């Protein structure tokens, strides 16, 4: 396998709350992205997926671990981060908020070029990026202000502003969740087309498993700062291994054929990550006594399961390891 485009090694990101407690938002993530793939990072709000995305683009700094792009570690000095940021771009959840209300569409798209001193042929590049993002004819949009655009058009402008720098990785944080359902598909189709046309790699952060089924090659499921399952989309959604993934999948209204397993409680608190398996307090296997029957209940309470290496893997004591022996 060729070297990955992006690699996260034992990444930890923490925040100090007002009351002094420390939130371990990202708590030991290892992840690889291959060139040209679409990876969906899914999980509930508060699981750390947005923090992970922001760390990848360099908006947050990890307390330990590293982000490696094409085998070079991300540096946080001015020069290193500027070169990296041209390569790694981000699209945010709320397209209305991510455009400065005082900037025209042209200025918003040209901003990246100006920051990186790519003034040459600016107008052609901006026009090209807008056209590729589905805003045609581009000249008609140059002088519009964000408030004159629909939500879908705004998100296209944001995407054009990121793609104009010809990045190798596009990190999209819930790129369609604030858009109307009928517009969503168009934006997803645009992202898919960008992958085919430019070879960009996409990490899409979402809570929506249907979206993952729509466009992702692979899925990584995140729970309380850790990736608990990953594999190809067909593997993870077709034969989920981790009880958390199974529960998530079962409550999606579109998956009619599963008995909904509604987990009790809300998404847990990253300032108080339980010992042992971080999921065991909400785990249906553990609660139903199934873990006891399998003889792993003690490990669920006391031992933090790690994510093994492999194509389709889950961090769960109940999942047989690769040799096929029960854990």
């Amino acid at each position, binding site marked *: 396998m060729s070297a990955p485009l992006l690699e996260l090694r034992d990444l930890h990101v923490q925040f100090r709350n007002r009351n002094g407690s420390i939130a371990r938002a990202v708590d030991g993530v290892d992840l690889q992205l291959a060139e040209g793939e679409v990876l969906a990072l899914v999980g509930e709000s508060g699981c750390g997926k947005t923090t992970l995305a*922001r760390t990848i*683009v*360099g*908006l947050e700094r990890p307390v330990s671990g590293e982000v490696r792009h094409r085998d070079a570690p991300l540096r946080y000095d*001015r020069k290193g*981060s*500027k070169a990296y*940021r*041209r390569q790694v*771009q*981000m699209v*945010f959840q*709320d397209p*209305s*908020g*991510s*455009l*400065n*209300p*005082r*900037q*025209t569409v*042209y*200025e918003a798209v040209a*901003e*990246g070029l100006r*920051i*990186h001193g790519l*003034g040459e*042929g*600016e*107008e*052609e590049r*901006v026009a090209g990026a807008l056209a590729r993002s589905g805003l045609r004819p581009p*000249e008609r949009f*140059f*002088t519009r*202000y*964000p*408030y004159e655009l629909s939500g879908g058009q705004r998100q296209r402008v*944001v995407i054009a*502003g*990121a793609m104009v*720098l010809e990045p190798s990785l596009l990190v999209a944080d819930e790129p369609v969740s604030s858009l109307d359902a009928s517009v969503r598909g168009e934006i997803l189709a645009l992202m898919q087309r960008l992958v085919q046309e430019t070879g960009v790699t996409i990490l899409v952060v979402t809570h929506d498993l249907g979206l993952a089924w729509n466009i992702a090659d692979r899925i990584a499921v995140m729970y309380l700062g850790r990736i608990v399952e990953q594999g190809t989309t067909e593997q993870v959604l077709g034969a989920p291994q981790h009880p958390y993934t199974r529960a998530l999948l079962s409550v999606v209204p579109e998956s009619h054929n599963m008995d909904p397993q509604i987990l009790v409680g809300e998404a847990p608190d990253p300032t108080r990550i339980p010992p042992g398996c971080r999921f065991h307090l909400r785990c249906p296997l553990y609660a139903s006594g199934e873990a006891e029957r399998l003889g792993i209940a003690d490990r669920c309470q006391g031992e933090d399961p790690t994510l093994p290496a492999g194509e389709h893997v889950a961090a769960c004591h109940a999942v047989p390891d690769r040799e096929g022996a029960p854990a």
Partner: protein
Amino acid sequence: MSVAAAPTDPRRIAWTRRRRALASAWSDLRKDKAGMAGLIILTLFILMAVFAPLLADKDGLRAINSLDNDPWLPPSEFPPMGTDALGRSVWTQFVWGSRISLLVGFAATILAIVIGTVVGVAAGFYGGRLEGVLMRLTEWFLVIPFLPLAIALAAVLGPSLRNIILVIGITSWPSTARLIRAQVLTVKQRLYVDRSRALGASDGHLMARHILPNIAGLVLANTTLTVPVAILSETTLAFLGLGDPTNASWGKMLEEAFQQGALTEQAWWYYIPPGVGILLVVLAFTLVGHALEEVLDPRLRGIEE
């Protein structure tokens, strides 16, 4: 950038659009009756200050040139505003006094706004220890009562026009600093600032492109609201005898009216004009300031979705 056909040049069109936005702000302002009234009053006083030499002879300010006039002549006998105890024309003092009052008001305000904006932006944008230090300093200035500090400063620096401006400037920036900092903190959290940062923007770029344009309206409105405070401060200092003895301001007129016993003489024509002048100018600035605030502040307008 390649030179494209004129009508499609995006930058030029953007400028046209900006001009249009300005025009629409102006038309919004025109709809605000109170603001327009303030603007008219203000324009009249500014014209008076600018064209003072045409309206009254400056020499009339010196008592030596007014020996022919009787003291305490009422306006009916010495139009338009009568004379003071030394026989000087009140009108001349009023006209020339507007110059000093407005000049001190504007200059001190610019000083205060510059200090306040720099402190507020630095504290809000960079945060951390710098913010802590700057905000403690701001609070320190804020809690010290204005008058004793100004009196002490004026006494130390000595009475001159420049020092009056300095004293008022360095005592009236803290509220601006706090206001600007709060606004910078909100703008800083906008997603478009994150987007720009993710594009690779430096702090300077963020400041110039996103932070400052979004606080400019607030700064302007705040300026208009600080001028009347500065004018009142000048009046206070001049009335207390800490003003520039060589220049007539409205505050100084009030002081002299008091010293010369205009009240006991019932020479209302000496203390009413400067009093009303101050009142009108302060009112006008406040009206314009609030109108500007509403027109320029996107939060109050609700265009920023």
